[in-house]
């Protein structure tokens, strides 16, 4: 059995099979009905004719049978007309009267039955079909045979049956095809609410969890499915909301105490201690931000329609990171193309990815160094530092969560690059790292450009 993905093609396929079968058997059936109706009519007519002939058959007192047909009937049975024939046979099968030229019986004499019988025979070119019925008078029985030549040109009813296919039978096919076409239209209309519901369903993503399938105009058979899907979406939305609220609450609950701590430190008289404590808080704040980023990335999905200018994002990150770099006696520079570089992606997330790379580059570069961001027209972003570079055996490890080269270093939880990796994956981008010939590392994010 062929399996169809679409209900529509399944219905149409079955419908076509039904049309083909009907197109074959309906004319055959009609033909059969027509033919038997024509036969019945002819039999009835013959029976009446035989009765009529029998009425003119009289038994004389001398024991002789006499047939005195009126002229109209004689004309009908005349050989010149040639359509009808009659014969009267006695008990022994001897022909008493006959309209045929050699006084032969219409049907063979052995066919004399006890009652009315319908018979068929061929005589030369003629195909005789008729009836034989007994007539009794004063204890003697004779048989009246009446036949009609169905091959005669005046017999219309048989022509109708014979011509049925040619003249009438073909009409069933166009009618069936017309019905098929109408049904296709009907099915399309009937399936429209389902198509609409599918289109609605396509709009659902973690950012648009409020979309629901409209139960309006949905056929009652499909309604339970639509309702079940909507209920599942309700639960999903609640899940996403909890996750989002958690991240928002966690951000508030974690960052506010850090701000308090920081403000308190500002009131300390010992500037040296307060400076060191500030650095600790920077580190903690960064880890908090990264943990929140990770929590948020759990629900990240990229809206295919979203576009982001990665060149503008790099400029924004450079602006943001410049004071940070300068505070550490380092610098930052942006080069590459000056034109916008549009990608399919979420600018918020791309900003975070590039910011993590840039912050890492600043942290690992020595004072006096410049971190370089290069944006290529083809959708590639390079972040070049002047740090110690990446050892070959660490190349894979650095993208793992909580991996750090130097566990003694505080203010870093080893989350930055795993965030970059996650965001790159969500954008179908490739993160790579290589050591620069002049020293330092080069991290690259390669995107596909927006179409």
């Amino acid at each position: 059995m062929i399996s169809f993905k679409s209900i529509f093609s399944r219905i149409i396929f079955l419908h076509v099979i039904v049309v083909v079968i009907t197109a074959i058997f309906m004319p055959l059936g009609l033909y059969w009905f027509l033919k038997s109706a024509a036969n019945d009519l002819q039999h009835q007519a013959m029976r009446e004719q035989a009765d009529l002939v029998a009425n003119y058959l009289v038994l004389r007192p001398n024991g002789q049978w006499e047939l005195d047909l009126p002229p109209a009937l004689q004309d009908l049975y005349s050989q010149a007309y040639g359509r009808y024939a009659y014969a009267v046979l006695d008990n022994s099968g001897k022909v008493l009267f006959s309209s045929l030229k050699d006084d032969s019986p219409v049907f063979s004499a052995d066919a004399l039955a006890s009652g009315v019988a319908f018979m068929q025979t061929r005589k030369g070119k003629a195909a005789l079909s008729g009836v034989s019925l007994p007539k009794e008078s004063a204890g003697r029985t004779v048989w009246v045979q009446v036949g009609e030549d169905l091959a005669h040109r005046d017999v219309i009813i048989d022509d109708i049956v014979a011509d049925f296919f040619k003249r009438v039978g073909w009409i069933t096919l166009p009618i069936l095809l017309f019905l098929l076409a109408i049904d296709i239209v009907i099915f399309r209309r009937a399936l429209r609410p389902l198509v609409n519901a599918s289109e609605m369903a396509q709009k659902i993503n973690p950012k648009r969890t409020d979309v629901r399938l409209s139960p309006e105009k949905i056929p009652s058979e499909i309604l339970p499915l639509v309702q079940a899907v909507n209920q599942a979406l309700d639960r999903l939305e609640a899940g996403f909301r909890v996750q989002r609220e958690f991240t928002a609450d966690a951000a508030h609950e974690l960052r506010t105490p850090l701000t308090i701590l920081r403000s308190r430190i500002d009131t300390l008289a010992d500037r040296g201690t307060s400076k060191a404590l500030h650095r600790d808080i920077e580190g903690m704040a960064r880890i908090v931000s990264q943990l929140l980023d990770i929590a948020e990335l759990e629900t990240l999905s990229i809206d295919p329609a979203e576009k982001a200018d990665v060149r503008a994002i790099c400029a924004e990150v450079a602006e943001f990171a410049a004071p940070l770099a300068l505070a550490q006696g380092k610098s930052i520079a942006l080069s590459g193309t000056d034109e916008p570089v549009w990608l399919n992606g979420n600018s918020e997330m791309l900003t975070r990815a590039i910011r993590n790379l840039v912050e890492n580059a600043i942290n690992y570069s020595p004072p006096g160094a410049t971190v370089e961001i290069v944006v290529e027209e083809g959708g590639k972003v390079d972040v070049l530092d002047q740090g110690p570079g990446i050892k070959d055996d660490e190349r894979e490890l650095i993208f793992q969560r909580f991996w750090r080269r130097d566990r003694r270093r505080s203010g870093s939880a080893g989350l930055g690059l795993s965030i970059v990796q996650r965001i790159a994956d969500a954008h179908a981008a490739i993160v790579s790292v290589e050591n620069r010939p002049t020293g330092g590392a080069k991290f690259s994010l390669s995107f596909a450009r927006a179409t």
Partner: protein
Amino acid sequence: MRVLVVEDNEELAHLLAQGLKAEGYEADLLTTVAEARAAVTTTRYAALVLDLGLPDGDGLSILREIRQRKDPIPVLVLTARGGVHDRVSGLRSGADDYLVKPFALEELVARLEALLRRPGQLLGRSLQVANLAFDTESRQAFIDEKPQVLSARETAVLELLMRRKDRVVSKKLVEDHIFGLSGEVASNAIEVYVHRLRKQLSERGAKVQIHTIRGVGYLIAEEKNQ
């Protein structure tokens, strides 16, 4: 000068008030959207420091109401969420600036001051970086309180940088500001002005540094004695 601080964490609110007081501001502290709404309609404050996550609603709703009334009060938004999306929606709702927690108190004061020095606001028009001052009304630069003569374009560049001290001013913004829509800008014109400005300031003993962030813009900061 009276500033309204709307922050639901009382400890933080008190610390902010203390810090502001040390800088010469009076701060009124409120903790809910409802209180803040009542306060801004009845009292004229010099500025509003607004936390977004409040117990009875989103701080942005007050902000939108204030802007609908065409109230020009400078608003500095404090947020625990530093995403671009959150910042953009804050600025769109009418915030003049935003600070992401955790921030340093001196950063808050500096940002607030920058807002109050905008035209039409309450603070004097004098911008200050180390021993370099700039009076935005007379458009006059001072080093150690001695007036300095600078060309019109150098002055314009200096003003832009000083309004956003310690922050990057994009090259594009400088170009737009200096040349407007008046026509073609020679590709290195801004660099030339900045170079001249830098040279003149250092020759005249200003303890400031104009950093070039290549490909991005410029930033003025206090000179660091390494």
